[in-house]
């Protein structure tokens, strides 16, 4: 008989369902089939109809029972499956891009100085001798000029050169603006050198300048400490050591407590607990005069810091050559 044959098949389908979804689908299908059988009943004679109707109802009940039993079994199975979940499988790789560590450090430096009320200023990478040397009180017969200009400066035609420091932008800015001034100048600088783990021919600096009435060494210390605290996000000690730059007087080297060992002494700080962070000083009166600013009326400090160096310290990058390498294995880490 037709129904008998179907019955076997239908029951098998329900029994063999592998998961809840399959079970639901089969059950739906089964119900549809039963519906068609029921519809067929109208066409046959009454006694037969009675008999068949009874069989169909029995089948229906049986099916529903089977369905519910199977459903419980499958639910239990899935519950068991849910109890085990391997979270150690490696994550799906989500690709987002990355910014160069110099950009990250530059952004941070800019943000901190902006929060201290400094303006961010840019200047050209190709410079003339006036802005790179003379105006910075490094005249052509100065021993420092020789070291910088002959030894370390890349020259183009017509005495144009690649700036050796961002300080040239100080001059450009002071020539055009009257004090009070508060600027920082991030940018690339160029020095002729043999490239090795600590020397590059092209690296990044930031320059700072603050000119107002009565600006002092004590003010510089305060601003510097505040900057370092915000940049490294911890208390930083600084110390000033006497130094010499033609464009500042007094001049100093700025040392910061070693970011690696915190001052107890390590390889990075050569066991001194201090590392050099940059040079600074009070703007030399001659530099003011070169920019037509009266040194009797205005005082100010200027500083220069290596952004590349800050990046090396912040991310513990051991070799300066990584920065210009274009190596994605390096760059994608940031």
């Amino acid at each position: 008989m037709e129904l008998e044959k179907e019955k076997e098949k239908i029951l098998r389908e329900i029994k063999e369902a592998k998961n809840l979804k399959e079970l639901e689908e089969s059950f739906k299908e089964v119900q549809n089939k039963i519906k068609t059988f029921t519809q067929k009943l109208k066409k046959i004679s009454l006694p037969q109809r009675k008999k068949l109707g009874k069989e169909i109802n029995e089948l229906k009940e049986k099916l529903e029972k089977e369905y519910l039993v199977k459903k419980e079994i499958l639910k239990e199975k899935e519950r068991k499956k849910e109890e085990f979940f391997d979270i150690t499988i490696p994550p799906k790789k989500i690709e987002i891009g990355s910014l160069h560590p110099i950009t990250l450090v530059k952004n941070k430096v800019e943000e901190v100085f902006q929060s201290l009320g400094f303006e961010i200023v840019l200047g050209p990478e190709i410079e003339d001798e006036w802005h790179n040397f003379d105006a910075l009180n490094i005249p052509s017969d100065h021993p420092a000029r020789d070291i910088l200009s002959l030894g370390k400066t890349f020259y183009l035609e017509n005495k144009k050169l690649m700036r050796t420091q961002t300080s040239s932008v100080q001059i450009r800015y002071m020539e055009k603006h009257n004090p009070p001034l508060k600027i920082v100048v991030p940018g690339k600088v160029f020095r002729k050198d043999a490239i090795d783990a600590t020397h590059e021919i092209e690296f990044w600096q930031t320059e700072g300048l603050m000119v107002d009435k009565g600006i002092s060494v004590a003010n510089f210390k305060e601003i510097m400490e505040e900057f370092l605290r915000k940049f490294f996000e911890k208390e930083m000690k600084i110390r000033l050591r006497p130094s010499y730059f033609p464009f500042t007087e007094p001049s100093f080297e700025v040392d910061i407590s070693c970011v690696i060992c915190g001052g107890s002494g390590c390889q990075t700080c050569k066991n001194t607990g201090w590392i050099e962070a940059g040079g600074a000083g009070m703007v030399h009166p001659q530099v003011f005069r070169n920019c037509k600013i009266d040194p009797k009326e205005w005082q100010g400090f200027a500083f220069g810091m290596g952004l590349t160096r800050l990046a090396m310290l912040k991310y513990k990058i051991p070799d300066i050559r990584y920065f210009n390498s274009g190596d994605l294995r390096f760059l994608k880490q940031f």
Partner: protein
Amino acid sequence: MNFSYNLLKSFFKKSFPKPKELAEILTMKAFECEEPQKVEGDFLLNIDVLPNRPDCYSHFGMAKEISAIIRKKAKLAKWKLKEEKKAKVEDFIKIKPQNVDSSICKRYCARVIFDVKVQESPKWLKDYLTVCGFLPINNVVDITNFVMVLLGQPLHAFDFEKIEGEEIKVRWAKKGEKILTLDEEVFELDEKVGVIADKEKPIAIAGIKGGKDSGISEKTEIVVIESANFEKSAILSAKRKLDLITEASKRFEHGVSLSLTPFALDFAAFLIQKFAKGKIAKGKIDVLFEKEKKRVIKFDPQKICEILGVKISENQQLEILKSLGFKKLKDNFLEIPEFRGDVVEIEDLAEEVGRIYGYERIKGSSPKTTLTFPENDIQILWEREIKDIFKSMGFTEVINYSFLPEKAISAFGIPFEKINKIKNPASFEFEFLRPTLLYRILENVKKNLPFYSEIKIFEIGNVFFKENGKVVERNTLSGAILGDKFFELKGYLDTLLSKLGILDFWFDFYQPKFDILNLKVWNKIKSSEIKIGQERVGVLGEVSKEILEHFKIQVPVFAFEINLEKLMKIMEKEQEFQPYSFYPAILRDISIICPQKTLVDEIMQILENCGGENLVDVDLIDIYDIDDERKSLTFRLSFQHKERAIEPKEVDELMEKIFKEIEKNPYFEIRK
């Protein structure tokens, strides 16, 4: 510079800091000093004397500096010179003032010592010199070197018998003259080099190095000791010509005090007499052109406090300055010590007071400044914006060298007259300033190929070229992606420009003639110009086979370069909010069969024109080739009304209009 701890200590009578302590004191108050190194009964101190302090290029000078810091007197031991009565210096040698060129030499002193016994130096002398980095030679030469490290005055000893004509001149060399120096090197001289000469020929390069022929040998019996003060400019000029730096030239280049000239000479003569058994001829030659003037400076303790930002009493300041050799005069003027040529202005005094007082004692304090309103360079803002957009699109930022090798310029076919050459490059790798960022970008791609199957990189930086003879520096944005992905790259740039708020940008066909550098970079077919209005701001496209071959890259690469300066001018415009409809949209797809060479843009134009303002979006969702002649394009059109829900009937009408318009073209066919 190397210093002997023992020799420094010898100037002080009583207690003196231990080597390590001394190094620390010097580092904090004067000059950076490395950790002392132990050397046979002594310590070597490597002190980085600052270039404005040539007075400390000697042990005595350094001792005086230490004396100011530790507040203890530094003194040279007593000594006395004994001259012979009968023999006079003039009996041996003549140096006429008119034979000393004052543009080379400011002061020339000499003594003659006879009956000298040239031999090995005593051990103490050899030890000091070894610590200071000098090779002991013989007692006479060693004494001249010793006096230099002790007092800072370079000296030179000649063998009298080798000086022809018993006459010494100081003059500029003549072109063609040569000299064989003590270390057996031959130098060709010219008018830029000052020399010491006898009647015939140069016997020394003035202030730099002595000649071999007139040098001291074991046979020497009569010694002429020269103590002179040479002009900085003459030393610099010779140094540039000969590329020669010596211990003597370093000192002259930075300036040596004029009063040292005769003093150091006498002291050297005294030592030679004592340790080489010589007899000193009576008198000394002293040609002096101009005496050093006494220099004074106004002492303004108030200003010094203002510069340092700390209160230091007038007395305390004065005490510090006195210990450094300053003398108080009337009316608050100070006499500057002769050896402190670096002190000129009040700021210089502030430095002296500040460092000896101790920078560590100056506490930080907030500046009292005027309220200002910083206005950042607009470039900073936009660069950040652009970098962030690229990062969010999965690009990695690179920073490359601004310099390129010649092979890069040739490979790109850039005319050399349009770019800038570095006169003194670091190496041939870095000879030219880059006129494009693309060369290094492609180099980056090549470098990363072995490690990555997907590469998306960008750079923002300056490119350099010449325009009408002028050097131009221009901020530029460039990048590349790996694979045959024109439309993907076009998509990135579309997103970038849209996010930057630029409304009227579009992609035009590439026309090489407008590329000022005439780059061979692009595959002209698969490249496009990025335009804003009618202005061309950049190019994107496939990198040509030729260039890929140059880099040995075997995969297609798509790249772009955009003139950021032009772009930023346009970006300065404000971005405005665009109102959008709150009502549901109705989507309809339309497939059109058209000839292979039909531009998608042509059909989009028809769609947009017919759709009117209610057609809010057109997307190309499928494109496939039917045969060699024809292709099928499927668009998804999105209809929406601003103020109400759009009726299906309205959309049907618009679609009908579109069908009619498309079918006007006999080559187009609508697939239904």
